[in-house]
């Protein structure tokens, strides 16, 4: 779908030789920190930007040259804006619906996304979450085959997030292909069939959440301590644990240990803590999360 895409803004390279594809009838997450090139990639697929290098095909069409044929078939949720400042939520949704041949029932969608509560309030005075839900409704009301959603739940409260996730899952069940960008790990883990992890405009990993998190067969231990570690702590812990494990500093008060999470590893870690006079605040044992995968691949935290 995207092949060898390169996009630059001035000197800054936003997307650097990115290639990825999307399966039909699935949810694909493009995961990465802010500034990773997610939105630029999405907007190139939506036809807003022309690829500076490489090719992009969406549903087999060129998003620029075949724009008129492609647009009715895709739905687009922008990260923000997209409505007149004085327009009412339902009025805006009805308008977008009227541009399509076989739109969804607007009343159903309004109820489904809780937009009825917006009443006669003009768009500029809706809450961020309400604007997001309206934006999602506008993306799907035309009954598209493929929906692009850019950070669909950024800034939403937990209830609205669950509603949004449930809607996206229902869309997939009914045969809609969904491409979403997110910097939320749990969103990608929960929703996506396929995850593309990108950073600095490059694809650094692809796979199902299962493949990505269980890929090595190892588990993860996260150690958080009450005071900053003494200098050289990761190296000395690494030496104590031996070559089967990998110790990575997360910040000055936490680090991550990948390897066999068995009793002997735990015993070694607590002995090491005692020996170095650091007090563990928490020692979390668990499967790797996408967060850990990202950390392992980039050496950086994803959270913003």
């Amino acid at each position: 779908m995207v092949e060898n895409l390169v996009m630059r803004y001035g000197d800054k390279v936003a997307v650097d030789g990115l290639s990825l594809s999307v399966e039909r009838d699935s949810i694909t997450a493009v995961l990465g920190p802010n500034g990773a090139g997610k939105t630029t990639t999405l907007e190139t697929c939506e036809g807003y930007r022309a690829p500076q290098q490489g090719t992009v095909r969406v549903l087999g069409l060129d998003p620029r040259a075949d724009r008129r044929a492609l647009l009715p078939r895709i739905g687009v949720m922008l990260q923000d804006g997209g409505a007149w400042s004085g327009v009412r939520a339902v009025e805006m949704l009805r308008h977008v619906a009227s541009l399509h041949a076989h739109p969804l029932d607007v009343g159903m969608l309004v109820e489904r996304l809780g937009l009825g509560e917006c009443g006669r309030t003009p768009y500029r005075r809706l809450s961020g979450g309400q604007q997001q839900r309206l934006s999602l409704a506008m993306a799907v009301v035309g009954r598209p085959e493929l929906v692009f959603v850019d950070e669909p739940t950024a800034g939403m409260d937990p209830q609205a997030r669950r509603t949004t996730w449930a809607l996206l899952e229902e869309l997939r069940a009914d045969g809609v292909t969904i491409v979403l960008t997110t910097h939320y790990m749990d969103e990608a883990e929960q929703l996506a069939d396929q995850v593309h992890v990108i950073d600095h405009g490059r694809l650094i990993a692809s796979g199902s959440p299962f493949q990505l998190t269980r890929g090595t067969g190892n588990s993860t231990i996260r150690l958080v301590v009450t005071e900053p570690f003494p200098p050289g702590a990761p190296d000395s812990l690494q030496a104590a644990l031996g070559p089967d494990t990998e110790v990575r500093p997360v910040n000055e008060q936490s680090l991550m240990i990948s390897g066999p999470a068995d009793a002997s590893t735990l015993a070694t870690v607590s002995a090491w803590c005692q020996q170095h006079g650091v007090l563990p605040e928490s020692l979390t044992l668990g499967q790797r999360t996408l967060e850990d995968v990202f950390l392992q691949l980039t050496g950086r935290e994803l959270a913003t």
Partner: protein
Amino acid sequence: MTTPTTPHGTFRPAPGAAPFATQVSAQARMETRLLLRNGEQLLLAVVIPLIVLVGGVLAADRVGLDFPYGVVDTLTPGVLALAVMSTSFTSLAIATGFERRYGVLKRLGASPLPRSGLLLGKVGALLFVELLQVLTISLVALALGWSPDLSVGTVLGALAVVLLGTAAFASLGLLIAGTLRAEATLAAANLVYLLLMAGGAVVIPSTSYGAFGPVTELLPSGALGNGMREALLHGALPVVPLLVLAAWAAVGTLLTSRTFTWE
């Protein structure tokens, strides 16, 4: 709280664009509603022209201003021109500037509505609002004793002036909206409107501007005002104003199509 669900198959894809005419009419109705909802624009569109008309008539009586024709007959065509200018230029520029700012143009750019449909929708909304303006102002003018020179020819002439004036000013309004930021567009569109209202021979005939008069005849505002006066006051075919407006429309459209950015 439970998450509501919908029957399986509700979201089954059924993509497609509505017929072009349906899209244009939806866009025109939407834009008309938004124009009429905006209080400031309504002030600009109807209240200011009416103040100029009524105030002008009262002031002329008081200071004994002497036009070769009656005061209402002289002022009304120009006030109609002012109303057309306020909608097709100032309102359009401000609305479009903020549409860019708020990502409306970007959003609609991803909908089935093509750009030609968006433009036609805007034109439809402009013409509808102008119709309401002309009706309101004409009724007030008639109540003040306006007796226009009405014949098929003069009405068609005035209509041609309104249409070409709308085209000229709309292209100039879009030129500003497409190049400046939204706030700068707001300021510039209002400033130009005020300057043209005072010095652009819209309401007051070019002949009242002395040596500056011939220059005002070449301004789009002067051509619009003089054209309306030639048709409705003198019963003549406004040939020169129509040519001037056509030239402005051509230049404005060319520049706008070269410079307009949708985001």
